[in-house]
């Protein structure tokens, strides 16, 4: 190969201005992290973010997930005006928050509300993987708690899509307290004889796994989702042991009894509709 150093770089300035509009949403392309295929964003979006080549599941934002899942026009958001605050004055947290809000267009890392699937009404929450790693701060916990309280009052089942890196470290102890608070709300909803179904998506870890994500009556998971409290690298370094193949993946957890069923993304609507239909009269029925 010729050395690149043979040729100089011309000092020509860019002709005209940088055109940021060139990459329009419709022709934006993404590379599949699994098979490396270059897929148009629009194609991916139309197929619920499943790679058309290898079937790998790409991350979905909270709102995209809801709009894809529920009956068209049935979603009514709750507590949309709750916004997080930097209570501890944690270094660079305020900047991270506003950046996450700007990029996601949402106030927090979880959306809650009511909707229907094939006409069956339910309350739901959907977490956002891109919002500070889907971490749980005080407002995430508060919104989840209020959703379960609302569902208990209105006698609605709850369906939740969990994805999280764990408790939000920037909110310190306030984050950790959400584990107890949400667990309490789930318990009261359950004691009212109501159904709670969770879908664990990649990755669901930390304080969320240690609280409401694992407290559902029916625990579903997306294929190959990483589910666990501490991550595999942390465990490996602490125990100084090589972990088994597929450790903490949904399939592994199902063999250990932590997950009830693995549901491919394109079968989830039907699965949830069926579960809601079967438990129309509550979890006790």
């Amino acid at each position, binding site marked *: 190969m010729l050395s690149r150093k*043979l*040729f*100089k*770089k*011309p*000092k*020509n300035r860019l*002709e005209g201005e940088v055109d940021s509009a060139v990459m329009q949403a419709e022709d934006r392309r993404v590379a599949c992290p699994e098979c490396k295929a270059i897929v148009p964003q629009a194609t991916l979006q139309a197929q619920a973010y499943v790679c058309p080549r290898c079937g790998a599941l790409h991350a979905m934002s909270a709102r995209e997930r809801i709009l894809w899942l529920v009956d068209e026009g049935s979603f009514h958001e709750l507590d949309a005006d709750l916004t997080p605050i930097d209570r501890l004055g944690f270094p660079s947290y305020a900047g991270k928050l506003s950046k996450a809000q700007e990029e996601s267009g949402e106030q927090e890392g979880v959306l809650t509300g009511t909707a229907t699937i094939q006409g069956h009404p339910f309350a739901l929450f959907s977490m956002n993987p891109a919002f500070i790693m889907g971490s749980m701060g005080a407002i995430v916990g508060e919104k989840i708690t209020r959703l379960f309280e609302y569902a208990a009052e209105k006698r609605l089942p709850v369906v939740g899509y969990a994805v999280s890196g764990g408790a939000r470290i920037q909110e310190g102890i306030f984050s950790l307290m959400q584990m107890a608070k949400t667990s309490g709300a789930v318990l009261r909803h359950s004691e009212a004889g109501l159904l709670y179904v969770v879908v664990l998506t990649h990755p669901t870890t930390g304080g969320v796994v240690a609280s409401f994500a694992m407290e559902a009556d029916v625990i579903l998971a997306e294929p190959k989702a990483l589910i666990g409290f501490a991550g595999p690298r942390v465990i490996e370094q602490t125990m100084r042991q090589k972990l088994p193949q597929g450790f903490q993946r949904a399939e592994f957890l199902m063999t250990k009894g932590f997950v009830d069923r693995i549901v491919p993304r394109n079968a989830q609507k039907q699965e949830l509709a069926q579960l809601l239909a079967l438990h129309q009269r509550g979890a006790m029925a």
Partner: protein
Amino acid sequence: MFSKILIANRGEIAVRVIRACKEMGISTVAVFSEADRDALHVSLADESYCIGPSPAKKSYLDMTAIVTVAKGCGAQAVHPGYGLLSENAAFAKLCEDHGIRFIGAPCEVMNRMGDKDAARRTMRDAGVPVIPGCDLVATAEEARREAEHIGYPLLIKARAGGGGRGIRRVFKPDALEAAFQSAAAEAQSAFGDGALYMEKLLTHVKHIEMQLLCDSFGNVLCLGERDCSMQRKNQKILEESPAVCVSPELREQLTKATVLAAKTVGYLGAGTIEYLLTQDGHFYFMEMNTRLQVEHPVTEMVTGVDLVKWQIRIACGQELNIRQEDIRIEDHAIECRINAEDTAHDFRPSCGTISMLHVPGGPWVRFDTALYQGYAIPPFYDSMIAKLIVSAHTRAEAIRKMQAALCEMVVEGVEHNAQMHIDLLCDQAFIDGTYTTDYLANRKA
């Protein structure tokens, strides 16, 4: 048409002429010195003959040797290229005397234009503006009287001048006599002719030259101007066409003066008239070059006219089939001369073997050279090893193209000046086109 032409030159211009001949179906004869046995033109021509030892004086300037080869191999014409014997009237006469056509200006025109004082007077009488000055001055006393009229600063020049010899700049009256005596002595020893004349010294001027093609039917074609103001020690290093500083009205005036000058001297073939252009838009005749110029490709690129082919056709007695109104210059061309010289050490010539050569390419990029990989550049001749020429619809685009082409060009094994060109193209004075002939001398590296 001539069936066989001898090319009495070397390097890229010999290659350029051979290419034109090949296109026209003409057989080519190359001549070479002992140092040039491996030169490209020697292999590219149909026949080649060694005409003497390495120094040009003993080979490429040996008129008898060249004419002998031409006669011996049956060449019908000689193309002298530029430099060497191209403006030598005695050589042109020797060729004609032996029944060989000299592809260039007629001897008498060459003689008249070679005498700088006579050329100046001819042009002045024809109504072409000349630099204010005086005719020949015999003594220092006479020079002093004339200098009062011309005003200082002024130039003392030798009638037979060339190559910058016999020229003195005089800034004050008391320096005149000494300058006069030394110029006369230098001209006497250099040219065997000590006759001197004087002109006003013009500063901050543009060197603008007009390209001509004249046939034996009285057709005179002016192919626009070239701006050759980027010079180092009177050597052009970068040329462009058209010139930024020449407005359409000025171009019309220049064209008119050039056609008038060509008709006055009865010019034939390809030629160039050089003018000095002052900042207030006045132009003055400087000299006429009765030959092909190094920088002729810029004109070829913007006009689409092959000057070498037309030189040959005209010498053969053909009539120009292009009219003045067909010449429309809409594009812009730039040429950079690539010289084998060490810019870091006062531009001293650099020799060596070409270890790597990559010729820049792409649309409207032209690279005229006689280099090839493995070629050893001999130390006896001119340091110019290549000419890189580009053209584009606008000047700005041509500058970009030249930048890209210079960066792509790879000539390894010798030092050369490509980086200097890259830097020059970024200079504000170049970008806005205001550079004058003294620009490089005052430029801070």
